């Protein structure tokens, strides 16, 4: 099996290009610069990872994001490097040949392959709402997870249940970690997640042989350790109290903070503000749209995409306040009269 360096050489890239990618991977993973020689050595020597990519209740958006990851590895190298032994969207064989290919890969690389899961899992009614080749998604997942060296749940659907999990959740959608209780699952949430993040996590597995450091919810700390708010380039405007009042108004064009328009940046953990999308081109806030927290659990049910973060969710307007005042007044007047009666009149 080829290593990354071999692929680069075969594709006609220079060693310098290879080293640039190695440094990019190192930086993205937050590894210290003293580890760089080790990283380079690993990428030169170790064979490319075998990836089995399962899709369940998904939209294939995570895949789309993944193949557009260009900052770390060029696309042709990427697709060569990550040997996608099974990917319903991207692989060429179909039907039984595809299933056969998967079974072979799972046997041959047992204990070493990376299992990537996209989309939420539905165990309801014996798993009948999502089947492939007659098998329910639960069985497929459990079977693939047994021999996996690393299990990665990409996207908010696989990490938390995502869109299918939103009310009323007719299929009883669950996250991968809820189904695979007890196994270590790396969650890479986002709708979709940033492609470079997915690539870096797999590269880390190649370099170190294990998952990167995870937080209490299974997310890699280097990418999900900070909120958008912590790194947003519009933060000085937030600090100065300068907010855009509506989309594309005078001040929004000047780059004012989008808090009033409902930005959920302060409570959203992701790397959008630093790594950004499409090779660092832009991210929602930069394009003028507030973040709606797509990498957090239950973001769809939380809703309130265009209402500010500090407002009561579930509405508390002047009507409710007046109702409260009316109730208090009624009780107060009643008690006062009772007190007057008990006092016995003056």
């Amino acid at each position, binding site marked *: 099996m080829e290593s990354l360096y071999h692929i680069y050489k075969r594709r006609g890239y220079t060693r310098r290009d290879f080293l640039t990618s190695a440094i990019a991977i190192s930086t993205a993973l937050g590894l210290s610069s003293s580890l760089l020689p080790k990283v380079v050595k690993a990428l030169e020597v170790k064979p490319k990872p075998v990836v089995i990519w399962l899709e369940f209740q998904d939209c294939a958006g995570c895949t789309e994001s993944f193949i557009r990851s260009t900052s770390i590895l060029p696309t042709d190298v990427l697709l060569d490097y990550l040997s996608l032994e099974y990917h319903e969207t991207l692989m060429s064989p179909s039907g039984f040949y595809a299933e056969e290919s998967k079974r072979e890969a799972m046997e041959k690389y047992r204990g070493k392959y990376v299992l990537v899961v996209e989309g939420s899992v539905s165990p309801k009614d014996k798993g009948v709402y999502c089947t492939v080749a007659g098998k329910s998604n639960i069985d497929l997942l459990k079977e693939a997870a047994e021999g996996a060296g690393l299990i990665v749940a990409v996207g908010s659907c696989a990490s938390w249940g995502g869109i299918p999990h939103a009310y009323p959740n007719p299929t009883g959608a669950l996250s991968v970690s809820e189904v695979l209780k007890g196994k270590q699952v790396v969650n890479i949430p986002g709708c979709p997640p940033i492609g470079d993040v997915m690539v870096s996590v797999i590269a880390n597995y190649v370099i170190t042989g294990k998952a990167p450091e995870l937080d209490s*919810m299974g997310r890699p700390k280097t990418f*999900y*350790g*900070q*909120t958008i*708010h*912590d790194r947003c380039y519009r933060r000085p405007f*937030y*600090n*100065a*109290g*300068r*907010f855009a009042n509506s989309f594309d108004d005078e001040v929004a064009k000047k780059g004012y903070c989008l*808090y*009033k328009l409902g930005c959920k940046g*302060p*409570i959203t*953990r992701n790397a959008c503000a630093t790594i950004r999308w499409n090779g660092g081109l832009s991210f929602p806030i930069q394009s003028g749209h507030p973040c709606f*927290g797509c990498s*957090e*659990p*239950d973001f769809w049910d*939380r809703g309130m995409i265009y209402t*500010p*973060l*500090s*407002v*009561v*969710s*579930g*509405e*508390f*307007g*002047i009507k*409710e*306040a007046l*109702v*409260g*005042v*009316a*109730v*208090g*007044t009624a*009780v*107060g*007047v009643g*008690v*006062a*009269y009772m*007190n*007057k009666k008990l006092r016995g009149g*003056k």
Partner: protein
Amino acid sequence: MSDVAFYDFVRGPFLKFALFVFFVGIAYRFFRVIFLGLPADYAKPKGSPPFMAVKKIIIKPTMGWTFNEIFSRRAINFIGGFLFHLGFLGLTFFVPAHALLWKEITGIPFPTLPNIVSDVLAYAALGSLIALTVHRALNPVLKLLTGKDEYFANLLIALIIFTGLLATRWAGGGSYIWLVSLHLFLANLLIIYIPFSRLSHFVYYFLSVGFMGWNAGKRGVSF
């Protein structure tokens, strides 16, 4: 519970409950006193009672500053009290996040303060609160008058200002979510606590000072 789930809880059902209890409680306390009745007063007033009542309500906070004999002994009460109230009221109504919340509740768009001003107000309020609480614990008159109610309220408010500062100024690495949730949680506790404690004095201010002004008008004095 994940940090965002906790945040959703304190900002959603808990905040709604707290605000409801607040409005019910404040209205209850106000009307429970008003409808107790007042005996008629047949003495002819020397001045104008309604005018003095309104005037006193507006200028009472400044009157202590002209009472030199007392101001010189209790400057800390006046200066600290002023700074604290100014700071805490400015923060409650004019910090951007809070202004948006008040806009939702009352429909009036409140103006917002830049962070540097909020910082100054927060430090002033926190500093005065701590100084006043220490003074309260040491002064013999205040020691006699103070009960658990006052210390608890002071502690709660100090924590709220402190966590607010922490969340906006000192948080990083995603700890903002926990800190702001803590801030919201404590604020909800305070909102629920207000109608049950002496903190509802802002309602009684109008009644008590109104009556005092009325009496002053009746007697024909101006101070």
